[in-house]
């Protein structure tokens, strides 16, 4: 029995495409962590936390096989942390036209995402690094500093974890780490302290 060569060719091509599509799958991860209410004394003063559209919808591909939808989780994390850090906080999604006297504006930006799998590091864990920067604006909407902060998260091991679940767990841990870093270090940013001390009003953040 002779088969139709055109049909046979199409079948082979379809099989190759199917195999190629299977090999090139992208793991899509959406972190779900919700930070607990932090144990922190809010500093007096007021600030605007700018979480713009880009930040709220942030999606990153740290490598060809991974996509992390960080937008919702990191927006919620930053809002939780700054609500605990600053007494009067306004969360905005657009740059305001002006700020009140002594008010500051904080704009977090995601700079880099890296993922490492056991196959790359020969360690028994999945790891995620997040690098953020905080742009700090004074009440004249001038940038006074940009402060960079890294965060790190890993899984306890890779036993019985799918790649997607492992990266999600490591990202959740990294988001908790960024919260811890901010809660401990935010009020120690030198340029922020310097700007505060130069202000005549006692209403500025942290005084």
């Amino acid at each position: 029995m002779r088969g139709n060569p055109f049909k046979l060719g199409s079948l082979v091509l379809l099989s190759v495409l199917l195999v190629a599509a299977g090999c090139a799958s992208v793991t899509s991860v959406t972190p779900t962590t919700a930070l607990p209410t932090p144990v922190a004394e809010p500093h007096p003063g007021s600030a605007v936390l700018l979480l713009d559209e880009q930040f709220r919808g942030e999606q990153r591909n740290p490598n060809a096989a991974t996509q992390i939808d960080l937008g919702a989780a990191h927006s919620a994390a930053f809002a939780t942390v700054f609500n605990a850090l600053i007494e009067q906080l306004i969360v905005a999604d657009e740059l305001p036209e002006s700020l009140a006297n002594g008010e500051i504006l904080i704009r977090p930006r995601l700079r880099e995402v890296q993922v490492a799998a056991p196959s790359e590091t020969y360690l028994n864990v999945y790891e995620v690094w997040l690098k953020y920067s905080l742009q700090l604006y004074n009440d004249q909407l001038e940038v006074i500093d940009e402060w960079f902060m890294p965060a790190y998260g890993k899984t306890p091991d890779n036993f019985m974890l799918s790649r997607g679940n492992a990266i999600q767990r490591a990202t959740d841990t990294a988001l908790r780490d960024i919260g811890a870093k901010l809660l401990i270090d935010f009020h120690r940013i030198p340029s922020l302290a310097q700007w505060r001390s130069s202000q005549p009003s006692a209403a500025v953040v942290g005084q």
Partner: protein
Amino acid sequence: MTIRARTLALNCALLWLAGCGATTTVDEYRSSNQPIAIDASETVAILGRRDAGHYETDREFVDCIGAKLASSTVQVVPEQKLIDAIYPWFEPRVAPKTLGRLRQLLDNPLVLARINALQLRYLIWVDGSTESAQPSGSMSCAIGPGGGGCFGFAQWDKSSIYEAIVWDLRDRTERGRVRVDSQGTSYLIGAVAPIPMFTPVKSDACAGLGEQLSDYFEG
């Protein structure tokens, strides 16, 4: 069953049990020979150390010790509940590693208020991991039209090393340390079907540590 067959079966069972045995050593240090006093209203929390780069104390092990320690006299606060209640102060980045740092942390009235709300009196830090060595031996499996099977022999060593440190949050002192070292060899025998004989080093380490800590609190 003939006597010979019974003897063979008995030998196999003994070999199996011997293969599954682990050697566990428990060392302890106490600041006093007296049992640690704890009121019925006070609680204990067990936390795993997770700040090392290449390993972290796994939560299942911490839960296992908690289950061994929990009794009518000792109430154990779940690990995650404490970590969340005092966020971010027990996150790996900032958790106190020394008594000096703990005293500094307890000087924070907000932290102290949360600890008092949980009626937390003792904190037990657990640090360690279970490691498996590279397997030795060889095993090959094959399948054909007439059936399949595995033939050969493989073995690997496992060791669980953990240390627990008990901190008294009221007196802000260390009350004792327990170190457990459990080692054993697991086997996989291929006799048509693969027969595993796993050594429960981790559960032995948990039992050793849990019982010793229970002894601290109950005398």
